[in-house]
């Protein structure tokens, strides 16, 4: 089996870019945010509001890594900072075109071909390098609970119902667990 990874040349004209303030924390079109634990949501997460992300412009200076950010989720405030990655990360994205093309082509040849080769051939995923990211935004501390006035100031006009169902859970201090075999079927 052969799974191609496409590398597009870097013309950002067709892609939507992040606002420059935010792009400083990652690449033009993507930012990686690292949290301890995981974000969990009850019910449908489609388009669900998570929280307010603030980038502190006042401490930004090109010579230092004092750039900071904060994330307010419900009544929890997380303090984040910019961290340079030890190794650049390629963000791979599964091409949306790879799959439908094959399925939406109901020519006879195609069907027969699929029958012979089974599901393996019918679904050749194809990946593309979306961006190369050299920095990330890390929220490494436990969230601080916000109450009273401050909470109101941070959360702005958002109502409680809007944010109540999202929980940050599972705090574990260790960062890395193990290096495991990565089987081809995982792609």
């Amino acid at each position, binding site marked *: 089996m052969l799974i191609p990874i496409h590398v597009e040349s870097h013309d950002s004209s067709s892609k939507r870019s*992040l606002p420059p303030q935010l792009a400083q924390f*990652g690449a033009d079109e993507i930012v990686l945010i690292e949290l301890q634990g995981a974000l969990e949501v009850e019910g449908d997460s*489609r388009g669900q509001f998570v929280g307010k992300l*603030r980038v502190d412009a006042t401490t930004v200076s090109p010579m230092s890594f004092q750039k900071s950010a904060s994330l307010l989720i419900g009544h929890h405030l997380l303090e984040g900072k910019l961290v340079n990655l030890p190794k650049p990360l390629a963000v791979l994205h599964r091409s949306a075109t790879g799959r439908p093309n094959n399925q939406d082509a109901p020519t006879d040849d195609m069907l027969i071909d699929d029958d012979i080769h089974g599901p393996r051939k019918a679904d050749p995923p194809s990946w593309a390098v979306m961006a190369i990211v050299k920095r990330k935004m890390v929220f490494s501390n436990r969230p601080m609970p916000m109450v009273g006035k401050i909470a109101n100031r941070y959360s702005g006009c958002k109502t409680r119902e809007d944010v109540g169902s999202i929980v940050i859970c599972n705090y574990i201090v260790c960062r890395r*667990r193990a290096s495991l075999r990565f*089987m*081809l079927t995982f792609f």
Partner: protein
Amino acid sequence: MEEYDLTFSFNPSSDTGAFKLMALPPELCKLIESTGDGECLSLNIKGQSEEDAVLCTLDKTYTIRSVVLSNSVLVVTPPAVGAAADRQNGEDVVVIRDQLNEILELVPSVPRLHRLNGLLRGREYDEGHEDEDEDEEDVSSDAENARPRKRQKFSYEDARETLQASDIELHEGLRARRVLVLDGELRPIAPSHLNTILELLLNYLVSLSLPHDAADIKELASALEDDHDIKKSVSTQVMGWFGQVSDGKWKMDVDDVVKGVGVGILRTYKDEPIAQDDFLGKWRKTVGDTFEARVSLNLLSGNYLSNPSYLTEPPTHMLTYFPSSSLPVDPATRFTDLFLTRARWKAEEISPFLADIVVNSKERDKLLLKYARAITDTEGIWYTARAKYNG
């Protein structure tokens, strides 16, 4: 102070699982960043579904390892063009496209061409196979026999798809294994047949008085075809393995040819050793006067074992054919095999037999540390098996 609304994806079904993070080694990062407009970089993930995945560039192979993080990494992008309209409060919206808990790491590895040996078993091309095309036509008229025959074909494209190696490494691997590509099918050449061709080539270079650094390929190939029924497609590929082909001229790699002939002679002494001097004499005679001076045992490193024999006076060295290509690929079993063959090895003796399973000498030393015990005496460093009691 800039403020953004962070939301989950508007399209979770297509976004979840659609992102992966891959840590890039510096050389690969440079390669991707230097890809200019319109250029196409070829990166492929290869293998069978039950194998470990590898990433192949044009000339390198990396094993993919998964590093599990207890932290989660959110992939945040601007909203897609249509979805942004859902929120019209004028604030900037950024979208969590996916939540990831692993990073893929790339570890340089040797190309995994070892499966070739099994895949190509029974497909050898030998003397007398020249008339094969006609056989095949006969068979294909019989519909029932034609099918299994067809399936047996193993083409270059098949190899590219199934083997975990980059294109250049695959090409080199096929060359090193002396595999012919005949009508797109891979056929390893029978060693004895290869030897015949090499000896014939050396003879004809002399008898046609062609210069060995710019021999006319057509002339050589037709001489071999006319006199010995060796197909042009075969002889030209053989010339390609043992030298450079350009503008219809063959620049012979003398050492390679001499080595090829040497291995061919040595191959018959797998079980019964031959005295070093006898072997060198035979070898020199076969390559002829012109190239006699190039004969040297160093060329054959990794292919023979040398043992002193004290039956004669002065003691002579006896050579046995012992190719590293026939040893197991897995380091542990290879070391077991090596130490069964010999209880102790000098560093310079053992390293040729490890060369094909390691990327560089650093990795070789790591393996030696792990699987062997070093003992120093007056003669230098010896390597012996690490544990003898493991049954």
